[in-house]
């Protein structure tokens, strides 16, 4: 009897975890499939390489592709060195104490702040106070602040996971702390750090609220870091929200999803090759 009860519990548990995994997969698949089915028919070369006409009811989305790429690039270029630097400081250059706890508390709190708050801060600080206006720079800086906690967190974990003996070996061969960090620790931690950066790319590409407030929603092709711009996600939002064109919105969404997928696949492939060189 007891044996039967245990077996039944096993069976139920197995069914539940299977169900959870399956459901997750199904939701993911449905969303992607829905947007691709609705959007892909409108994704043509003219759509990708053309400029929007009539507020985006017709024409293409090239300015928003450029805007997305520029904004994300600025955010990543600022957040990665800052985040990895902070992680290196926390793991290699200081001991656990009040300061590290404070920094960790700060970054964790930052990670929980809704993006619209970052947007508001970016608007007040970068756009108005620093006079950067609605621009790629304002938007990029705001996104950088937003993704910084993720990059710090993942980098810190990746660096902590590097075996201690690598550091011992490096020091024993006459390396300074900085040489040890750059030559023995960081290369080993790179896949983990890259995961954080890729998460940051994903959040930057997909962000709308903070971007509208700081980079604006101009449909012109940006010409400098100080140009306002509109990202694909913002374009999607405006097209759908203001009822301009649901078809164009879906098409934009399809491009967005494919872009994020492509980034993930490429990054994973690059990391796999990197790892294969060491092992």
């Amino acid at each position, binding site marked *: 009897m007891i044996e039967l009860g245990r077996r039944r519990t096993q069976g139920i548990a197995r069914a539940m975890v299977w169900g959870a995994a399956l459901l997750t997969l199904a939701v993911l698949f449905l969303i992607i499939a829905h947007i691709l089915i609705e959007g892909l028919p409108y994704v043509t070369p003219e759509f990708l390489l053309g400029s929007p006409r009539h507020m985006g009811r017709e024409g293409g989305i090239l300015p928003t592709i450029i805007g997305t790429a520029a904004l994300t690039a600025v955010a990543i270029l600022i957040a990665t060195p800052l985040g990895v630097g902070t992680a290196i400081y926390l793991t290699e250059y200081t*001991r656990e104490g009040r300061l590290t706890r404070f920094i960790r508390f700060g970054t964790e709190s930052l990670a929980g702040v809704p993006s619209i708050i970052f947007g508001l801060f970016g608007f007040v600080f970068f756009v108005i106070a620093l006079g950067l206006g609605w621009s790629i720079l304002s938007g990029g800086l705001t996104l950088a602040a937003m993704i910084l906690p993720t990059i710090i967190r993942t980098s810190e974990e990746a660096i902590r996971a590097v*075996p201690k*003996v*690598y*550091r*011992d*070996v*490096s*020091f*024993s*061969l*006459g*390396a*300074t702390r900085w*040489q040890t960090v750059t*030559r*023995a620790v960081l*290369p*080993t931690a790179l896949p983990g750090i890259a995961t954080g950066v890729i998460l940051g790319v994903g959040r930057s590409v997909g962000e709308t609220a903070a971007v509208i407030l700081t980079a604006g929603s101009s449909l012109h092709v940006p010409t400098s870091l100080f140009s306002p711009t509109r990202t694909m996600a913002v374009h999607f939002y405006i097209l759908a929200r203001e009822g301009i064109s649901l078809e164009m919105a879906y098409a934009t969404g399809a491009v967005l999803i494919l872009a994020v997928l492509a980034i993930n696949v490429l990054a994973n492939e690059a990391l796999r090759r990197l790892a294969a*060189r*060491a*092992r």
Partner: protein
Amino acid sequence: MVDSLPAPAAQQHVVLRDLSIFYGSVPGLRNVNLAIPRHQIFALFGPSRSGKTTLLRAINRMNDLIPGVHRQGQVYLGDQEIYAPQTDVADLRRRVGMVFALPSPLPMSIFENVVYGPRLVGVRDRRRLEEIAEQALTQAAIWDEVKDRLHTPALRLSGGQQQRLCIARSLAFEPEVLLLDEPTSGLDPISTARIESSLRQLKERVTVVIAPSSIQQASRIADRAAFLLMGELIEEGEAGQLFTNPRDRRTEDYITGRFG
């Protein structure tokens, strides 16, 4: 009982004078006086937590990296006091190589492992680096096994090969002293024998200080040996005499396996 210095002073390569090392308030090494002669194999043996690793890591100042460690007494390398404020620690570690208990290749190619140290000081010339690698790998008796795959990942080597690679890596600077902390623990007898024979050849140019993986290993390769127990140096002397006819009761008990 520590006997008087065994050989003429000029022959002493590494000298520890009243050396004590504390982890916080816990002593890891207590008032150790020891003279290690040049170009011999010197074995430090004793049960675990006897202070062997602490002593080894005092000679290349690796203990400095552990938070809360402090030291009393001196360590001399030749006539240089290595804890003197003017000591360049990186330079010291290039003169005193170290091999760790578990094979610890870095996750890069065999070649890059060996030239890791030289690259740190800015050696860039390809031919020079290749010379260094060949010489070090030859001295560690692994050149023939790896010369055709220098650019494959070091982690693909067997455990014994990895450990010989680590010895080669620590030899890249032609150090004066080589410290080995149980270098053959976890290795098979054939790999162990290879490493022991390469150490015997190495002692012609390098002073070898080893915490052997076993007393048997100590008696196979050591010229001199010292017995440590709970951070104290119990007895030191010529290896043959120490292992067959120890003066201290505790040394005898340990060697004969009465405790350990």
